[in-house]
Protein backbone atom coordinates (compact mmCIF):
# COMPACT_ATOMS: atom_id res chain seq x y z
CA UNK A 1 0.00 0.00 0.00
CA UNK A 2 2.64 2.50 1.14
CA UNK A 3 4.93 1.34 -1.67
CA UNK A 4 2.18 1.84 -4.26
CA UNK A 5 1.52 5.39 -3.07
CA UNK A 6 5.26 6.00 -3.10
CA UNK A 7 5.54 4.79 -6.70
CA UNK A 8 2.68 7.07 -7.82
CA UNK A 9 4.25 9.99 -5.96
CA UNK A 10 7.62 9.34 -7.64
CA UNK A 11 5.97 9.18 -11.09
CA UNK A 12 4.00 12.38 -10.42
CA UNK A 13 7.11 14.15 -9.21
CA UNK A 14 9.14 12.99 -12.21
CA UNK A 15 6.51 14.18 -14.70
CA UNK A 16 6.03 17.55 -12.98
CA UNK A 17 9.79 18.01 -12.73
CA UNK A 18 10.27 17.22 -16.43
CA UNK A 19 7.40 19.43 -17.62
CA UNK A 20 8.41 22.44 -15.53
CA UNK A 21 12.07 22.16 -16.46
CA UNK A 22 11.24 21.68 -20.09
CA UNK A 23 9.03 24.78 -19.86
CA UNK A 24 11.98 26.75 -18.50
CA UNK A 25 14.29 25.33 -21.12
CA UNK A 26 11.85 26.25 -23.88
CA UNK A 27 12.00 29.87 -22.75
CA UNK A 28 15.67 29.85 -23.63
CA UNK A 29 15.14 27.84 -26.83
CA UNK A 30 12.53 30.35 -27.93
CA UNK A 31 14.86 33.32 -27.41
CA UNK A 32 17.79 31.61 -29.09
CA UNK A 33 15.59 30.26 -31.89
CA UNK A 34 14.11 33.68 -32.63
CA UNK A 35 17.62 35.12 -32.70
CA UNK A 36 18.72 32.42 -35.11
CA UNK A 37 15.80 33.08 -37.45
CA UNK A 38 16.26 36.85 -37.29
CA UNK A 39 20.02 36.52 -37.86
CA UNK A 40 21.23 37.93 -34.56
CA UNK A 41 22.95 36.38 -31.57
CA UNK A 42 20.34 36.92 -28.86
CA UNK A 43 20.13 36.02 -25.19
CA UNK A 44 23.82 36.42 -24.45
CA UNK A 45 23.68 39.15 -21.79
CA UNK A 46 23.23 37.00 -18.72
CA UNK A 47 26.54 36.58 -16.96
CA UNK A 48 27.34 35.24 -13.53
CA UNK A 49 30.35 37.05 -12.04
CA UNK A 50 31.38 38.21 -15.49
CA UNK A 51 31.20 34.74 -16.94
CA UNK A 52 28.76 34.62 -19.86
CA UNK A 53 30.04 31.49 -21.52
CA UNK A 54 27.29 29.12 -20.51
CA UNK A 55 24.36 30.90 -22.17
CA UNK A 56 21.79 28.23 -21.37
CA UNK A 57 22.51 27.88 -17.66
CA UNK A 58 22.92 31.60 -17.10
CA UNK A 59 19.72 32.50 -18.90
CA UNK A 60 17.82 29.74 -17.12
CA UNK A 61 18.80 31.24 -13.78
CA UNK A 62 18.70 34.90 -14.76
CA UNK A 63 15.25 34.97 -16.35
CA UNK A 64 13.24 33.78 -13.33
CA UNK A 65 15.41 35.82 -10.96
CA UNK A 66 14.70 38.96 -12.94
CA UNK A 67 10.97 38.23 -12.95
CA UNK A 68 10.85 37.50 -9.24
CA UNK A 69 12.68 40.68 -8.22
CA UNK A 70 10.28 42.98 -10.11
CA UNK A 71 7.51 44.82 -8.29
CA UNK A 72 4.27 42.86 -8.10
CA UNK A 73 1.84 45.50 -9.33
CA UNK A 74 -1.93 45.30 -8.88
CA UNK A 75 -3.97 48.04 -10.57
CA UNK A 76 -5.59 50.23 -7.87
CA UNK A 77 -9.04 49.95 -9.44
CA UNK A 78 -8.59 46.27 -10.26
CA UNK A 79 -9.85 43.27 -8.36
CA UNK A 80 -7.03 42.20 -6.07
CA UNK A 81 -8.35 38.70 -5.29
CA UNK A 82 -9.11 37.67 -8.87
CA UNK A 83 -5.92 39.34 -10.11
CA UNK A 84 -3.96 36.96 -7.87
CA UNK A 85 -6.13 33.93 -8.62
CA UNK A 86 -5.81 34.22 -12.41
CA UNK A 87 -2.14 33.14 -12.82
CA UNK A 88 -2.80 30.07 -10.65
CA UNK A 89 -5.79 29.19 -12.84
CA UNK A 90 -3.57 29.56 -15.91
CA UNK A 91 -0.82 27.29 -14.60
CA UNK A 92 -2.96 24.58 -12.94
CA UNK A 93 -4.59 22.91 -16.00
CA UNK A 94 -1.34 22.93 -17.96
CA UNK A 95 0.38 20.98 -15.18
CA UNK A 96 -2.31 18.43 -14.35
CA UNK A 97 -3.08 17.34 -17.92
CA UNK A 98 0.23 15.54 -18.26
CA UNK A 99 -0.92 13.07 -15.58
CA UNK A 100 -2.70 10.80 -18.07
CA UNK A 101 -0.11 10.94 -20.87
CA UNK A 102 1.91 7.69 -20.83
CA UNK A 103 5.68 8.10 -21.13
CA UNK A 104 6.50 4.40 -21.43
CA UNK A 105 5.05 0.89 -21.43
CA UNK A 106 5.30 -1.19 -18.28
CA UNK A 107 8.37 -1.52 -16.08
CA UNK A 108 8.90 -4.84 -14.28
CA UNK A 109 10.66 -4.21 -11.01
CA UNK A 110 11.03 -7.48 -9.12
CA UNK A 111 7.49 -8.91 -9.07
CA UNK A 112 5.92 -5.47 -9.38
CA UNK A 113 4.44 -4.18 -12.65
CA UNK A 114 4.68 -0.42 -12.92
CA UNK A 115 2.56 1.30 -15.55
CA UNK A 116 4.63 4.23 -16.83
CA UNK A 117 1.80 6.74 -16.60
CA UNK A 118 0.89 8.81 -13.55
CA UNK A 119 -2.86 8.08 -13.54
CA UNK A 120 -4.60 5.47 -15.67
CA UNK A 121 -8.14 6.83 -16.02
CA UNK A 122 -10.72 5.05 -18.15
CA UNK A 123 -11.96 8.46 -19.33
CA UNK A 124 -8.36 9.39 -20.32
CA UNK A 125 -8.61 11.83 -23.15
CA UNK A 126 -11.85 13.39 -21.90
CA UNK A 127 -9.98 14.30 -18.72
CA UNK A 128 -7.42 16.13 -20.84
CA UNK A 129 -10.12 18.07 -22.66
CA UNK A 130 -11.90 18.84 -19.39
CA UNK A 131 -8.75 20.24 -17.81
CA UNK A 132 -7.75 22.00 -21.02
CA UNK A 133 -11.11 23.72 -21.18
CA UNK A 134 -10.41 25.22 -17.74
CA UNK A 135 -7.33 26.96 -19.15
CA UNK A 136 -9.42 29.79 -20.51
CA UNK A 137 -10.31 31.01 -17.00
CA UNK A 138 -6.79 32.18 -16.22
CA UNK A 139 -6.83 34.38 -19.29
CA UNK A 140 -10.38 35.73 -18.93
CA UNK A 141 -10.31 36.36 -15.18
CA UNK A 142 -6.87 37.97 -15.36
CA UNK A 143 -8.06 40.20 -18.17
CA UNK A 144 -11.17 41.26 -16.31
CA UNK A 145 -9.50 41.77 -12.93
CA UNK A 146 -6.92 44.16 -14.44
CA UNK A 147 -9.67 46.69 -15.16
CA UNK A 148 -7.92 47.82 -18.31
CA UNK A 149 -9.62 48.18 -21.68
CA UNK A 150 -6.79 46.52 -23.59
CA UNK A 151 -6.79 43.49 -21.32
CA UNK A 152 -10.58 43.30 -21.46
CA UNK A 153 -10.44 43.22 -25.26
CA UNK A 154 -7.77 40.54 -25.07
CA UNK A 155 -9.87 38.52 -22.67
CA UNK A 156 -12.98 38.68 -24.84
CA UNK A 157 -10.97 37.68 -27.89
CA UNK A 158 -9.25 34.89 -25.99
CA UNK A 159 -12.44 33.33 -24.65
CA UNK A 160 -14.11 33.38 -28.08
CA UNK A 161 -11.02 31.90 -29.75
CA UNK A 162 -10.51 29.14 -27.21
CA UNK A 163 -14.16 28.04 -27.26
CA UNK A 164 -14.13 27.98 -31.07
CA UNK A 165 -10.99 25.88 -31.40
CA UNK A 166 -11.93 23.49 -28.60
CA UNK A 167 -14.70 22.22 -30.88
CA UNK A 168 -12.32 21.44 -33.73
CA UNK A 169 -9.77 19.98 -31.29
CA UNK A 170 -12.32 17.58 -29.81
CA UNK A 171 -13.77 16.55 -33.16
CA UNK A 172 -10.35 15.88 -34.71
CA UNK A 173 -9.55 13.35 -31.99
CA UNK A 174 -12.80 11.40 -32.43
CA UNK A 175 -11.36 9.72 -35.54
CA UNK A 176 -8.42 8.41 -33.50
CA UNK A 177 -10.78 7.19 -30.77
CA UNK A 178 -12.83 5.28 -33.35
CA UNK A 179 -9.77 3.68 -34.96
CA UNK A 180 -8.22 2.46 -31.70
CA UNK A 181 -11.55 1.95 -29.94
CA UNK A 182 -10.62 3.33 -26.53
CA UNK A 183 -10.43 6.54 -24.52
CA UNK A 184 -7.39 5.43 -22.52
CA UNK A 185 -4.18 7.01 -23.75
CA UNK A 186 -2.05 4.04 -22.67
CA UNK A 187 -4.26 1.73 -24.76
CA UNK A 188 -4.05 4.11 -27.73
CA UNK A 189 -0.26 4.10 -27.45
CA UNK A 190 -0.22 0.28 -27.26
CA UNK A 191 -2.56 0.06 -30.26
CA UNK A 192 0.02 1.95 -32.29
CA UNK A 193 2.58 -0.81 -31.78
CA UNK A 194 0.90 -3.00 -34.42
CA UNK A 195 1.80 -2.93 -38.11
CA UNK A 196 -0.54 -1.60 -40.77
CA UNK A 197 -0.80 -5.01 -42.48
CA UNK A 198 -2.25 -6.49 -39.29
CA UNK A 199 -5.06 -3.93 -39.39
CA UNK A 200 -5.84 -3.87 -43.10
CA UNK A 201 -8.44 -6.40 -44.38
CA UNK A 202 -7.55 -9.28 -46.69
CA UNK A 203 -9.27 -7.56 -49.60
CA UNK A 204 -6.81 -4.66 -49.52
CA UNK A 205 -3.95 -6.83 -50.77
CA UNK A 206 -2.21 -4.07 -52.68
CA UNK A 207 -2.13 -1.74 -49.67
CA UNK A 208 -0.90 -4.57 -47.46
CA UNK A 209 1.97 -5.25 -49.82
CA UNK A 210 3.05 -1.63 -50.29
CA UNK A 211 2.54 0.15 -46.97
CA UNK A 212 1.97 -2.85 -44.72
CA UNK A 213 5.42 -2.54 -43.17
CA UNK A 214 4.59 0.84 -41.61
CA UNK A 215 3.69 0.96 -37.89
CA UNK A 216 0.00 1.70 -37.25
CA UNK A 217 0.65 5.21 -35.98
CA UNK A 218 -2.14 7.75 -35.89
CA UNK A 219 -0.47 9.91 -38.52
CA UNK A 220 -0.77 7.12 -41.12
CA UNK A 221 -4.35 6.24 -40.21
CA UNK A 222 -5.66 9.76 -39.60
CA UNK A 223 -3.45 12.28 -41.47
CA UNK A 224 -6.22 14.87 -41.80
CA UNK A 225 -6.99 14.63 -38.11
CA UNK A 226 -3.35 15.36 -37.31
CA UNK A 227 -3.35 18.57 -39.36
CA UNK A 228 -6.59 19.68 -37.69
CA UNK A 229 -5.32 18.75 -34.25
CA UNK A 230 -2.03 20.55 -34.76
CA UNK A 231 -3.75 23.75 -35.92
CA UNK A 232 -6.30 23.69 -33.14
CA UNK A 233 -3.68 22.88 -30.50
CA UNK A 234 -1.53 25.82 -31.58
CA UNK A 235 -4.64 28.02 -31.42
CA UNK A 236 -5.37 26.71 -27.92
CA UNK A 237 -1.89 27.65 -26.71
CA UNK A 238 -2.60 31.20 -27.95
CA UNK A 239 0.71 31.67 -29.73
CA UNK A 240 1.49 33.23 -33.09
CA UNK A 241 -0.23 32.88 -35.57
CA UNK A 242 -3.14 32.75 -33.12
CA UNK A 243 -1.92 35.16 -30.43
CA UNK A 244 -4.92 37.46 -30.75
CA UNK A 245 -5.44 37.73 -26.96
CA UNK A 246 -1.95 39.26 -26.63
CA UNK A 247 -1.29 40.86 -30.01
CA UNK A 248 1.49 43.25 -28.98
CA UNK A 249 1.00 45.58 -31.92
CA UNK A 250 -2.72 46.03 -31.27
CA UNK A 251 -3.41 45.51 -27.57
CA UNK A 252 -0.04 46.37 -25.92
CA UNK A 253 0.17 42.93 -24.30
CA UNK A 254 -3.52 42.08 -24.27
CA UNK A 255 -4.75 40.01 -21.40
CA UNK A 256 -1.58 40.41 -19.34
CA UNK A 257 -0.89 44.10 -19.70
CA UNK A 258 -1.21 44.67 -15.97
CA UNK A 259 0.85 41.68 -14.88
CA UNK A 260 4.42 41.87 -13.68
CA UNK A 261 6.88 39.96 -11.55
CA UNK A 262 6.06 36.52 -10.25
CA UNK A 263 2.49 36.49 -11.56
CA UNK A 264 3.66 37.18 -15.09
CA UNK A 265 6.22 34.42 -14.67
CA UNK A 266 3.36 32.05 -13.84
CA UNK A 267 1.50 33.01 -17.03
CA UNK A 268 4.72 32.57 -18.95
CA UNK A 269 5.45 29.16 -17.44
CA UNK A 270 1.84 28.15 -18.04
CA UNK A 271 2.15 28.96 -21.73
CA UNK A 272 5.28 26.84 -22.10
CA UNK A 273 3.76 24.02 -20.06
CA UNK A 274 0.82 24.10 -22.48
CA UNK A 275 3.27 23.73 -25.37
CA UNK A 276 4.80 20.68 -23.70
CA UNK A 277 1.35 19.18 -23.06
CA UNK A 278 0.28 19.80 -26.66
CA UNK A 279 3.48 18.16 -27.87
CA UNK A 280 2.88 15.20 -25.56
CA UNK A 281 -0.65 14.79 -26.90
CA UNK A 282 0.45 14.97 -30.55
CA UNK A 283 3.09 12.36 -29.81
CA UNK A 284 0.71 10.04 -27.99
CA UNK A 285 -2.21 10.30 -30.39
CA UNK A 286 -0.48 10.50 -33.76
CA UNK A 287 3.16 9.46 -33.48
CA UNK A 288 3.03 6.27 -31.47
CA UNK A 289 3.65 7.74 -28.03
CA UNK A 290 6.52 5.81 -26.51
CA UNK A 291 6.59 3.28 -29.38
CA UNK A 292 9.81 2.76 -31.26
CA UNK A 293 8.98 1.15 -34.63
CA UNK A 294 9.23 -2.67 -34.46
CA UNK A 295 10.27 -2.60 -30.78
CA UNK A 296 8.23 -5.17 -28.84
CA UNK A 297 8.51 -5.87 -25.12
CA UNK A 298 11.43 -8.27 -25.66
CA UNK A 299 13.33 -6.48 -28.40
CA UNK A 300 13.18 -5.56 -32.07
CA UNK A 301 11.13 -7.72 -34.47
CA UNK A 302 11.54 -6.37 -37.97
CA UNK A 303 8.87 -7.05 -40.63
CA UNK A 304 11.44 -8.83 -42.84
CA UNK A 305 11.93 -11.45 -40.16
CA UNK A 306 15.11 -10.40 -38.41
CA UNK A 307 14.95 -9.77 -34.69
CA UNK A 308 17.27 -8.37 -32.04
CA UNK A 309 16.48 -9.34 -28.46
CA UNK A 310 17.14 -6.73 -25.81
CA UNK A 311 17.07 -6.80 -21.99
CA UNK A 312 13.95 -5.33 -20.36
CA UNK A 313 15.67 -2.24 -18.95
CA UNK A 314 17.08 -1.31 -22.37
CA UNK A 315 13.61 -1.61 -23.92
CA UNK A 316 12.08 0.67 -21.27
CA UNK A 317 14.89 3.19 -21.63
CA UNK A 318 14.48 3.16 -25.42
CA UNK A 319 10.74 3.79 -25.06
CA UNK A 320 11.10 6.65 -22.60
CA UNK A 321 13.88 8.09 -24.73
CA UNK A 322 11.74 7.86 -27.88
CA UNK A 323 8.85 9.61 -26.09
CA UNK A 324 11.14 12.40 -24.87
CA UNK A 325 12.67 12.83 -28.31
CA UNK A 326 9.26 13.10 -30.01
CA UNK A 327 7.99 15.57 -27.43
CA UNK A 328 11.09 17.72 -27.87
CA UNK A 329 10.64 17.61 -31.62
CA UNK A 330 7.06 18.89 -31.43
CA UNK A 331 8.01 21.59 -28.92
CA UNK A 332 10.69 22.72 -31.37
CA UNK A 333 8.21 22.64 -34.25
CA UNK A 334 5.80 24.91 -32.35
CA UNK A 335 8.55 27.39 -31.53
CA UNK A 336 9.75 27.36 -35.12
CA UNK A 337 6.19 28.03 -36.27
CA UNK A 338 5.90 31.04 -34.00
CA UNK A 339 8.88 32.80 -35.55
CA UNK A 340 8.00 31.87 -39.12
CA UNK A 341 4.42 32.95 -39.79
CA UNK A 342 2.64 36.29 -39.28
CA UNK A 343 -0.42 36.79 -37.09
CA UNK A 344 -3.94 36.18 -38.44
CA UNK A 345 -6.55 38.90 -38.39
CA UNK A 346 -9.36 38.30 -35.89
CA UNK A 347 -12.02 37.58 -38.51
CA UNK A 348 -9.61 35.16 -40.22
CA UNK A 349 -9.13 33.25 -36.97
CA UNK A 350 -12.89 32.88 -36.53
CA UNK A 351 -13.41 31.93 -40.18
CA UNK A 352 -10.65 29.32 -40.06
CA UNK A 353 -12.04 27.80 -36.88
CA UNK A 354 -15.72 27.63 -37.74
CA UNK A 355 -15.86 27.48 -41.51
CA UNK A 356 -12.81 25.37 -42.35
CA UNK A 357 -11.57 23.26 -39.44
CA UNK A 358 -15.03 22.34 -38.13
CA UNK A 359 -16.53 21.08 -41.43
CA UNK A 360 -13.34 19.22 -42.36
CA UNK A 361 -13.29 17.60 -38.92
CA UNK A 362 -16.94 16.54 -39.30
CA UNK A 363 -16.29 15.03 -42.74
CA UNK A 364 -13.24 13.24 -41.35
CA UNK A 365 -15.35 11.74 -38.55
CA UNK A 366 -18.01 10.59 -41.04
CA UNK A 367 -15.51 8.97 -43.42
CA UNK A 368 -13.63 7.30 -40.57
CA UNK A 369 -16.89 5.93 -39.20
CA UNK A 370 -17.83 4.49 -42.59
CA UNK A 371 -14.41 2.88 -43.08
CA UNK A 372 -14.40 1.40 -39.57
CA UNK A 373 -17.90 0.01 -40.13
CA UNK A 374 -16.88 -1.47 -43.50
CA UNK A 375 -13.80 -3.14 -41.99
CA UNK A 376 -15.85 -4.62 -39.16
CA UNK A 377 -18.14 -6.29 -41.69
CA UNK A 378 -15.38 -7.39 -44.10
CA UNK A 379 -12.48 -8.55 -41.96
CA UNK B 1 -19.51 4.54 2.79
CA UNK B 2 -21.51 7.76 2.76
CA UNK B 3 -25.27 7.14 3.20
CA UNK B 4 -27.61 8.10 0.38
CA UNK B 5 -29.53 10.49 2.64
CA UNK B 6 -26.52 12.75 3.09
CA UNK B 7 -26.35 13.37 -0.65
CA UNK B 8 -30.10 13.98 -0.83
CA UNK B 9 -30.03 16.50 2.02
CA UNK B 10 -27.07 18.28 0.41
CA UNK B 11 -28.83 18.51 -2.93
CA UNK B 12 -32.01 19.81 -1.24
CA UNK B 13 -29.95 22.58 0.37
CA UNK B 14 -28.25 23.50 -2.91
CA UNK B 15 -31.60 23.51 -4.70
CA UNK B 16 -33.06 25.84 -2.08
CA UNK B 17 -30.06 28.19 -2.43
CA UNK B 18 -30.66 28.27 -6.18
CA UNK B 19 -34.33 29.11 -5.65
CA UNK B 20 -33.36 31.94 -3.31
CA UNK B 21 -31.08 33.31 -6.03
CA UNK B 22 -33.90 33.31 -8.56
CA UNK B 23 -36.24 35.01 -6.08
CA UNK B 24 -34.08 37.80 -4.73
CA UNK B 25 -31.64 38.83 -7.44
CA UNK B 26 -32.39 41.61 -9.91
CA UNK B 27 -29.71 40.70 -12.43
CA UNK B 28 -30.67 38.43 -15.32
CA UNK B 29 -27.24 36.77 -15.54
CA UNK B 30 -27.23 35.83 -11.85
CA UNK B 31 -30.80 34.53 -12.17
CA UNK B 32 -29.64 32.27 -15.01
CA UNK B 33 -26.67 31.12 -12.93
CA UNK B 34 -28.99 30.28 -10.03
CA UNK B 35 -31.03 28.12 -12.41
CA UNK B 36 -27.82 26.27 -13.34
CA UNK B 37 -27.25 25.73 -9.62
CA UNK B 38 -30.74 24.21 -9.26
CA UNK B 39 -30.14 21.91 -12.23
CA UNK B 40 -26.91 20.75 -10.62
CA UNK B 41 -28.66 19.98 -7.35
CA UNK B 42 -31.11 17.80 -9.26
CA UNK B 43 -28.23 16.11 -11.12
CA UNK B 44 -26.69 15.26 -7.78
CA UNK B 45 -29.88 13.45 -6.69
CA UNK B 46 -29.98 11.53 -9.97
CA UNK B 47 -26.39 10.36 -9.59
CA UNK B 48 -26.89 9.48 -5.93
CA UNK B 49 -29.96 7.37 -6.75
CA UNK B 50 -28.19 5.77 -9.73
CA UNK B 51 -25.39 4.72 -7.39
CA UNK B 52 -27.69 3.29 -4.73
CA UNK B 53 -29.91 1.46 -7.25
CA UNK B 54 -26.92 0.23 -9.26
CA UNK B 55 -28.51 1.37 -12.52
CA UNK B 56 -27.07 3.54 -15.28
CA UNK B 57 -30.39 5.25 -16.04
CA UNK B 58 -29.80 8.08 -13.60
CA UNK B 59 -26.43 8.88 -15.15
CA UNK B 60 -27.90 8.90 -18.65
CA UNK B 61 -30.59 11.32 -17.51
CA UNK B 62 -27.89 13.61 -16.09
CA UNK B 63 -26.29 13.50 -19.53
CA UNK B 64 -29.55 14.76 -21.04
CA UNK B 65 -29.95 17.40 -18.35
CA UNK B 66 -26.52 18.71 -19.33
CA UNK B 67 -27.57 18.94 -22.99
CA UNK B 68 -30.73 20.80 -22.01
CA UNK B 69 -28.76 23.08 -19.67
CA UNK B 70 -26.36 23.95 -22.49
CA UNK B 71 -29.28 24.80 -24.79
CA UNK B 72 -30.95 26.81 -22.04
CA UNK B 73 -27.80 28.79 -21.27
CA UNK B 74 -27.18 29.57 -24.95
CA UNK B 75 -30.73 30.80 -25.58
CA UNK B 76 -30.94 32.57 -22.23
CA UNK B 77 -27.73 34.48 -22.81
CA UNK B 78 -28.76 35.40 -26.35
CA UNK B 79 -31.98 36.84 -24.93
CA UNK B 80 -29.99 38.69 -22.26
CA UNK B 81 -27.77 40.23 -24.95
CA UNK B 82 -30.69 41.38 -27.07
CA UNK B 83 -32.54 42.77 -24.03
CA UNK B 84 -29.42 44.63 -22.92
CA UNK B 85 -29.13 46.21 -26.38
CA UNK B 86 -32.61 47.72 -26.04
CA UNK B 87 -32.63 48.68 -22.36
CA UNK B 88 -28.95 49.10 -21.37
CA UNK B 89 -29.81 47.24 -18.17
CA UNK B 90 -29.96 43.71 -16.82
CA UNK B 91 -32.65 44.45 -14.24
CA UNK B 92 -35.79 42.36 -14.87
CA UNK B 93 -37.82 45.02 -12.99
CA UNK B 94 -37.29 47.39 -15.91
CA UNK B 95 -38.72 45.03 -18.48
CA UNK B 96 -42.32 46.14 -18.06
CA UNK B 97 -43.32 47.44 -21.45
CA UNK B 98 -46.32 45.11 -21.54
CA UNK B 99 -47.29 45.87 -17.95
CA UNK B 100 -50.27 48.09 -17.71
Amino acid sequence: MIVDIGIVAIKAFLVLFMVLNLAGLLGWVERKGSALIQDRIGANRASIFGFAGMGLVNTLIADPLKFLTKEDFVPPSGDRFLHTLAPCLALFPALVTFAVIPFGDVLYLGDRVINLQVANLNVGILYIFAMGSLGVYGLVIGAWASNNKFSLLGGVRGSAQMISYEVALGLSVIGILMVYGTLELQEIARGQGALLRELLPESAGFLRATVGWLPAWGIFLQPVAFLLFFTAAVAETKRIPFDLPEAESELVAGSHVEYSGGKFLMFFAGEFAEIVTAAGLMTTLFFGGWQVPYLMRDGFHFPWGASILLPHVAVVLLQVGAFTFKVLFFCWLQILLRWTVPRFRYDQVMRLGWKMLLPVALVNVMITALVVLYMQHNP
Amino acid sequence: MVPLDYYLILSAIIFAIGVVGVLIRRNLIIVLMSIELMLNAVNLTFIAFANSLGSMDGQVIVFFVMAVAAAEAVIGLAIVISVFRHRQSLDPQEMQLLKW
Partner: protein
Amino acid sequence: MNGAQVGFFILAGLLIVSSLWVVFQRNVVHSAMALVAALFLVAILFLTLNAPMVGVLQILVYAGAIMVLFLFVIMFLNPIGLEQRRRLWWGFGALAGLLLAGALVPVLTNGDAPRDPVVATELFGGPEELARSLFTDFVLPFEIASILLLVAIVGAVVLAKREP
Protein backbone atom coordinates in the same frame (compact mmCIF):
# COMPACT_ATOMS: atom_id res chain seq x y z
CA MET C 1 -17.37 8.44 11.12
CA ASN C 2 -14.91 7.11 8.53
CA GLY C 3 -12.63 8.78 6.01
CA ALA C 4 -15.18 8.81 3.18
CA GLN C 5 -17.67 10.64 5.38
CA VAL C 6 -15.12 13.22 6.48
CA GLY C 7 -14.29 13.83 2.81
CA PHE C 8 -17.98 14.16 2.01
CA PHE C 9 -18.55 16.73 4.75
CA ILE C 10 -15.58 18.81 3.59
CA LEU C 11 -16.85 18.75 -0.01
CA ALA C 12 -20.43 19.48 1.10
CA GLY C 13 -19.33 22.40 3.24
CA LEU C 14 -17.30 23.91 0.41
CA LEU C 15 -20.18 23.36 -2.01
CA ILE C 16 -22.70 25.12 0.25
CA VAL C 17 -20.34 28.04 0.84
CA SER C 18 -19.64 28.52 -2.86
CA SER C 19 -23.35 28.21 -3.72
CA LEU C 20 -24.12 30.92 -1.17
CA TRP C 21 -21.44 33.05 -2.80
CA VAL C 22 -23.13 32.60 -6.17
CA VAL C 23 -26.38 33.94 -4.80
CA PHE C 24 -25.24 36.64 -2.38
CA GLN C 25 -22.27 38.21 -4.18
CA ARG C 26 -23.04 41.62 -5.65
CA ASN C 27 -20.26 41.37 -8.23
CA VAL C 28 -21.34 39.27 -11.23
CA VAL C 29 -17.85 37.99 -12.02
CA HIS C 30 -17.34 36.85 -8.42
CA SER C 31 -20.67 35.03 -8.62
CA ALA C 32 -19.62 33.34 -11.84
CA MET C 33 -16.29 32.19 -10.38
CA ALA C 34 -18.08 30.86 -7.29
CA LEU C 35 -20.39 28.92 -9.60
CA VAL C 36 -17.39 27.45 -11.42
CA ALA C 37 -16.04 26.30 -8.05
CA ALA C 38 -19.44 24.83 -7.15
CA LEU C 39 -19.63 22.93 -10.46
CA PHE C 40 -16.13 21.58 -9.91
CA LEU C 41 -17.11 20.37 -6.41
CA VAL C 42 -20.26 18.71 -7.80
CA ALA C 43 -18.05 16.94 -10.35
CA ILE C 44 -15.88 15.60 -7.50
CA LEU C 45 -19.04 14.43 -5.70
CA PHE C 46 -20.00 12.58 -8.90
CA LEU C 47 -16.63 10.83 -8.80
CA THR C 48 -17.33 9.68 -5.24
CA LEU C 49 -20.64 8.24 -6.49
CA ASN C 50 -19.03 5.96 -9.13
CA ALA C 51 -19.83 8.26 -12.02
CA PRO C 52 -16.40 9.20 -13.46
CA MET C 53 -17.69 9.71 -17.00
CA VAL C 54 -20.48 12.06 -15.96
CA GLY C 55 -18.11 13.85 -13.60
CA VAL C 56 -15.64 14.57 -16.39
CA LEU C 57 -18.48 15.61 -18.70
CA GLN C 58 -19.70 17.93 -15.96
CA ILE C 59 -16.36 19.75 -15.95
CA LEU C 60 -16.10 19.67 -19.75
CA VAL C 61 -19.62 20.91 -20.48
CA TYR C 62 -20.50 23.08 -17.50
CA ALA C 63 -17.21 24.52 -16.31
CA GLY C 64 -15.49 24.41 -19.69
CA ALA C 65 -18.22 25.62 -22.02
CA ILE C 66 -21.34 27.00 -20.34
CA MET C 67 -19.55 29.09 -17.72
CA VAL C 68 -17.06 30.42 -20.26
CA LEU C 69 -20.07 31.53 -22.26
CA PHE C 70 -21.46 33.27 -19.17
CA LEU C 71 -18.15 35.04 -18.58
CA PHE C 72 -17.96 35.99 -22.24
CA VAL C 73 -21.40 37.62 -22.06
CA ILE C 74 -20.56 39.37 -18.79
CA MET C 75 -17.44 40.87 -20.37
CA PHE C 76 -19.20 41.61 -23.62
CA LEU C 77 -21.92 43.62 -21.86
CA ASN C 78 -19.60 44.78 -19.04
CA PRO C 79 -22.44 46.06 -16.85
CA ILE C 80 -21.22 48.80 -14.53
CA GLY C 81 -22.60 49.35 -11.05
CA LEU C 82 -23.33 46.76 -8.41
CA GLU C 83 -26.79 45.65 -7.53
CA GLN C 84 -28.19 47.19 -4.36
CA ARG C 85 -28.33 45.00 -1.30
CA ARG C 86 -31.99 45.24 -0.26
CA ARG C 87 -31.71 43.66 3.17
CA LEU C 88 -35.41 43.13 3.87
CA TRP C 89 -36.12 41.51 0.51
CA TRP C 90 -33.00 39.33 0.66
CA GLY C 91 -33.96 38.30 4.18
CA PHE C 92 -37.42 37.22 3.01
CA GLY C 93 -35.83 35.28 0.16
CA ALA C 94 -33.47 33.50 2.53
CA LEU C 95 -36.39 32.60 4.80
CA ALA C 96 -38.34 31.19 1.86
CA GLY C 97 -35.26 29.15 0.90
CA LEU C 98 -35.00 27.72 4.41
CA LEU C 99 -38.67 26.75 4.33
CA LEU C 100 -38.21 25.08 0.93
CA ALA C 101 -35.17 23.13 2.15
CA GLY C 102 -37.13 22.10 5.26
CA ALA C 103 -39.94 20.83 3.04
CA LEU C 104 -37.66 19.07 0.54
CA VAL C 105 -35.50 17.13 3.00
CA PRO C 106 -38.26 14.90 4.48
CA VAL C 107 -39.76 14.28 1.03
CA LEU C 108 -36.44 13.22 -0.49
CA THR C 109 -35.31 11.10 2.44
CA ASN C 110 -38.66 9.25 2.60
CA GLY C 111 -38.18 7.45 -0.73
CA ASP C 112 -38.03 3.69 -0.94
CA ALA C 113 -34.66 3.50 -2.68
CA PRO C 114 -32.30 1.05 -0.98
CA ARG C 115 -30.33 2.90 1.69
CA ASP C 116 -27.30 0.66 1.26
CA PRO C 117 -25.82 1.10 -2.23
CA VAL C 118 -25.44 -1.86 -4.53
CA VAL C 119 -21.76 -2.74 -4.81
CA ALA C 120 -20.63 -1.21 -8.08
CA THR C 121 -18.93 -3.34 -10.70
CA GLU C 122 -15.62 -2.36 -12.27
CA LEU C 123 -17.22 -0.85 -15.37
CA PHE C 124 -20.13 0.96 -13.65
CA GLY C 125 -20.17 4.62 -14.61
CA GLY C 126 -17.44 4.25 -17.22
CA PRO C 127 -17.70 5.29 -20.86
CA GLU C 128 -18.73 1.81 -22.09
CA GLU C 129 -21.66 1.45 -19.70
CA LEU C 130 -22.90 4.98 -20.30
CA ALA C 131 -22.68 4.54 -24.07
CA ARG C 132 -24.50 1.19 -23.88
CA SER C 133 -27.45 2.75 -22.04
CA LEU C 134 -27.37 5.80 -24.26
CA PHE C 135 -27.51 3.90 -27.55
CA THR C 136 -29.89 1.10 -26.52
CA ASP C 137 -32.57 2.25 -24.07
CA PHE C 138 -32.25 5.97 -24.71
CA VAL C 139 -31.71 6.25 -28.47
CA LEU C 140 -34.81 8.32 -29.11
CA PRO C 141 -34.14 10.87 -26.34
CA PHE C 142 -30.55 11.05 -27.57
CA GLU C 143 -31.64 11.97 -31.10
CA ILE C 144 -34.19 14.45 -29.74
CA ALA C 145 -31.45 16.06 -27.63
CA SER C 146 -29.34 16.55 -30.75
CA ILE C 147 -32.27 18.27 -32.47
CA LEU C 148 -32.77 20.41 -29.37
CA LEU C 149 -29.14 21.54 -29.55
CA LEU C 150 -29.50 22.36 -33.24
CA VAL C 151 -32.60 24.45 -32.50
CA ALA C 152 -30.72 26.20 -29.69
CA ILE C 153 -27.84 27.08 -32.03
CA VAL C 154 -30.16 28.49 -34.67
CA GLY C 155 -32.16 30.36 -32.04
CA ALA C 156 -29.06 31.90 -30.50
CA VAL C 157 -27.81 33.12 -33.87
CA VAL C 158 -31.21 34.64 -34.72
CA LEU C 159 -31.54 36.34 -31.33
CA ALA C 160 -28.05 37.73 -30.99
CA LYS C 161 -27.56 38.81 -34.60
CA ARG C 162 -27.59 42.56 -35.05
CA GLU C 163 -29.97 43.86 -37.69
CA PRO C 164 -27.96 45.18 -40.64
